[in-house]
């Protein structure tokens, strides 16, 4: 910003930047605050809802699986209580029994076997030929011998197929016998896999050691190591008896700790392979020996939430861009106005300065005229005095006398000329007087011409006047009209200064209007300037005499045109 002169473009750019900045700040801050706050609220509420739903589903399934396992156990136990050793050790009976059980349980039981306390299978019914198989070394056998009922983990066993065993120990005739039933692994899997939510939700069962108790769904397999880590947290939770004080493991985020009575725990972890974040819902099964782990990709679980968030962000972006565009457009307009106003102010200032200059020139001229007239008056008087004296005592030499008389007369004449010049100078130096008088326009033209004629002569311009006599007087401000005419004539003389020319001033009566034509033989007005003239410049010329009776029509005739 410079004190005088017009502001540079940098100033307006900075002004625009600050206006846009402030408007954007004021407009966007509340918008962003409201959006973020409501988005956070919505996020929290929705996440809670989704997680609650997940734990509900998983818990329900866990109960179902638990019940399923318990039912199998009870069935086998009831069998041992109902039938005698003789019945159970006969293979036809056992086969019959298996058939009944399979019919009752949709073929979930694969086979049945009776094993003595030495681990030898005494009787067997099933698709495999496992008669007299020796299970003495099998882990499940040892476990089954210790407790009355036993449910094994999944293992391959002698048949080399994944399966698990329900074993019930019973005392017949003083010996410990074990009735063993194998549960169909595929059927069991189906039960677990029934837990499917969304596109990526899937469930598996792991034992405490982190071994799969179900075939994990083929497509993207759950990383076993990660699951083990999750289980570790579960273990520790179990150890402390309360989920609240579990130390956090890196990469795991507890979303919902298992609460007493509600044995569900929700953990969030990034998959080491895919890099996607998943939610893991863990709940213990089989008295804490197994865990049902439900996994779902976070993006899938919170799909609606993320969609809503996208919509909000999109709306924010579109809204923000709209605000920005509007602000920039409006600011551009405002800045345009300011620039124009500044420019107009600048022009006004220049005009005021110009007017001030003219006024001071006028004062100076007035002072000079006065100061010059007095000495000139003295000179003329002194010359007159000499003339007076000479008329009494003539100069002896006749030629000299004539010359002296001529010289004195010349002093008188030139003194009168000085008076004329200062008189005219003063009449123009005087402040323009906007008062309207009845004026004879021809006299005014003559007055102006008398002032400009000398200059025109020097410029080689001949002045021709065609003044129609007996024009009606017009009501105008004489001094303003003088200015208009003087400017026109001066411009014309300026234009013709180089090669000389003719200036023609005509006054005439046209349809009740007094018209002044000023024509010159100069090069005329360039086309570019002429275009601008029709808009404002002409107005500027006619405005001072914008009166009812008079339209000073100014015709700048081009040389070729006349």
């Amino acid at each position, binding site marked *: 910003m410079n004190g005088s002169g017009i502001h540079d473009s940098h100033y307006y750019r900075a002004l625009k930047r600050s206006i846009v900045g402030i408007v954007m700040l004021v407009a966007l801050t509340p918008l962003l605050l409201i959006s973020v706050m409501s988005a956070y609220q919505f996020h929290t509420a929705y996440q809670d809802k989704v997680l609650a739903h997940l734990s509900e589903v998983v818990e329900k399934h866990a109960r179902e699986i638990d019940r399923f396992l318990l039912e199998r156990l009870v069935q086998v136990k009831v069998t041992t209580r109902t039938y005698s050793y003789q019945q159970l050790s006969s293979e036809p009976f056992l086969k019959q029994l298996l058939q009944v059980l399979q019919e009752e349980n949709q073929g979930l039981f694969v086979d049945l076997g009776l094993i003595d306390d030495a681990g030898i299978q005494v009787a067997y019914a099933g698709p495999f030929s496992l008669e007299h198989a020796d299970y003495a070394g099998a882990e499940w056998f040892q476990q089954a011998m210790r407790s009355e009922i036993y449910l094994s983990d999944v293992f391959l066993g002698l048949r080399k197929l994944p399966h698990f065993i329900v074993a019930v120990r019973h005392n017949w005739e003083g010996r410990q016998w074990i009735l063993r039933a194998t549960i169909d692994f595929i059927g069991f899997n189906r039960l677990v896999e029934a837990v499917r939510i969304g596109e990526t939700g899937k469930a598996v069962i792991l034992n405490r050691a982190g071994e799969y108790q179900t075939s994990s769904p083929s497509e993207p397999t759950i990383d076993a190591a990660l699951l083990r880590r999750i289980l570790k947290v579960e273990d520790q939770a179990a150890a402390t008896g309360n989920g609240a004080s579990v130390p956090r493991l890196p990469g795991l985020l507890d979303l919902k700790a298992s609460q007493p009575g509600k044995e569900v725990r929700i953990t969030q972890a990034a998959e080491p392979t895919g890099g996607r974040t998943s939610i893991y819902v863990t709940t213990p099964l089989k008295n804490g020996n197994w865990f049902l782990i439900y996994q779902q990709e976070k993006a899938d679980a919170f799909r609606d939430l993320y969609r809503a968030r996208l919509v909000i962000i999109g709306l924010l972006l579109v809204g923000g861009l709209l605000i920005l565009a509007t602000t920039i457009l409006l600011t551009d307009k405002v800045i345009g106005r300011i620039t124009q106003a500044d420019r107009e102010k600048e022009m006004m200032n220049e005009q005021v300065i110009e007017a001030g200059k003219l006024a001071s020139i006028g004062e100076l001229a007035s002072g000079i005229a006065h100061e010059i007239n007095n000495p*000139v008056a003295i000179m003329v008087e002194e010359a*007159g*005095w000499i003339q007076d004296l000479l008329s009494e005592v003539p100069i002896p030499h006749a030629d000299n006398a004539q010359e002296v008389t001529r010289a004195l007369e010349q002093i008188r004449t030139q*003194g009168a000329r000085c*008076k004329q010049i*200062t008189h005219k100078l003063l009449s123009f130096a005087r402040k323009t007087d906007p008062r309207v008088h009845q004026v004879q326009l021809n006299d005014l033209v003559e007055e102006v011409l008398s002032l400009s004629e000398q200059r025109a002569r020097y410029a080689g311009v001949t002045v021709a006047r065609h003044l129609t006599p007996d024009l009606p007087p017009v009501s105008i401000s004489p001094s303003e009209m003088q200015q208009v005419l003087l400017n026109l004539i001066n411009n014309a003389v300026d234009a013709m200064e180089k090669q000389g020319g003719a200036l023609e001033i005509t006054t005439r009566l046209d349809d009740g209007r007094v018209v002044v034509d000023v024509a010159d033989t100069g090069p005329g007005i360039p086309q570019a300037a002429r275009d601008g003239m029709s808009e404002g410049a002409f107005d500027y010329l006619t405005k001072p005499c914008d009166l009812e009776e008079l339209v000073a029509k100014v015709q700048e005739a081009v040389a070729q045109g006349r």
Partner: protein
Amino acid sequence: MNGFNVLLVDDELEFLDTLIKRMKKRGLQVAGVNRGEDALAWLDREPVDVVVLDVKMPGLDGIETLREIKNRRPLVEVIMLTGHANMEVAVQGMELGAFDYLMKPMDIDELIYKLQDANRKKSLQEQRIKRKQEELGTRR
């Protein structure tokens, strides 16, 4: 014809002196002062028929002096002399009762004609007053 008293008032002494000399040569009874105050004082002491008054003077200026002269001696005629073409002042002077105005440098003959005219006007005025007084006197 020229038997009347003229008072020149101008602050330019050189101008005043030469003009007095020239006018005396033409047989006019002329005196000169260079201040408005002195002019008023002179009017109190000496008989004056016409005053030639410069408009622009230090001290009491032409217009003020004119006003004062017309106040004290309404019959005395005044011719204004302006150093510059200040028409407003000239017009003001005329409104205040000046006989005429002239612009410097002026032709001495023109000045003398104007002086004679002014004196004639004054004489007429005086005669008219005398007649009126006589009329009033006889009536009485």
